[in-house]
């Protein structure tokens, strides 16, 4: 078999994931199931070509049922320095710890000192 062109594959896969998530944004209100289909496709591509889904997009859909968050389909609460996101379609609860602000400042200091 011919050699696979890894680098080019990864580049195209990344672009496709971006396109898919952009389309998901638009289709979220029009056709909810179709938007879910896009998320599913994007995940499959990411798994197949071992690419991480950017954090920005990861927050936009529920990990369990892959439905994108739409207003009225998810609930957000903040408790004990954590953001808790509950998906109303499947009830999966996602907790995102909030890193203390100081972390950022120390990074700047290090850069300053270094």
């Amino acid at each position, binding site marked *: 078999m011919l050699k*696979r062109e890894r680098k080019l594959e990864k580049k195209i896969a990344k672009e496709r994931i971006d396109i898919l998530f952009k389309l998901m944004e638009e289709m979220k209100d029009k056709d909810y199931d179709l938007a879910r289909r896009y998320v599913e*496709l994007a995940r*499959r591509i990411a798994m197949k070509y071992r690419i991480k889904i950017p954090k920005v997009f990861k927050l936009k859909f529920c990990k369990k049922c892959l439905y994108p968050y739409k207003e009225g389909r998810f609930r957000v609460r903040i408790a004990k320095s954590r953001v808790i996101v509950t998906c109303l379609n499947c009830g999966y609860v996602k907790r995102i710890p909030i890193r203390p602000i100081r972390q950022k400042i120390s990074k700047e200091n290090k850069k300053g000192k270094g």
Partner: protein
Amino acid sequence: MRPELVIAHEWIGLNVEVVKSVNPCEVGIRGKVVDETKNTLKIMTEKGLKTVIKKGRVFRVKFAGKLMDVSGDLINFRPEERIRRGLILLKRGKVRRW
């Protein structure tokens, strides 16, 4: 993006028109690709959603600033598989890259 990479790239969201087809009623279907499976393309036309089989059809698609006729047999793979298979097809077809 170079024009020949269309067979590996995303088709959902592209404007597509069926140019040649085994089933003459399908010639002239035009619209945006909404979904894609291994063997079919789902095209949203003004008259509604149309499902067109890829094999044996030729699609006219706009990609990377060029208008292109793509034969359905080249994209007859699952969407995620199409990247890998498409690039191998290009390599086997000895595509000139100048």
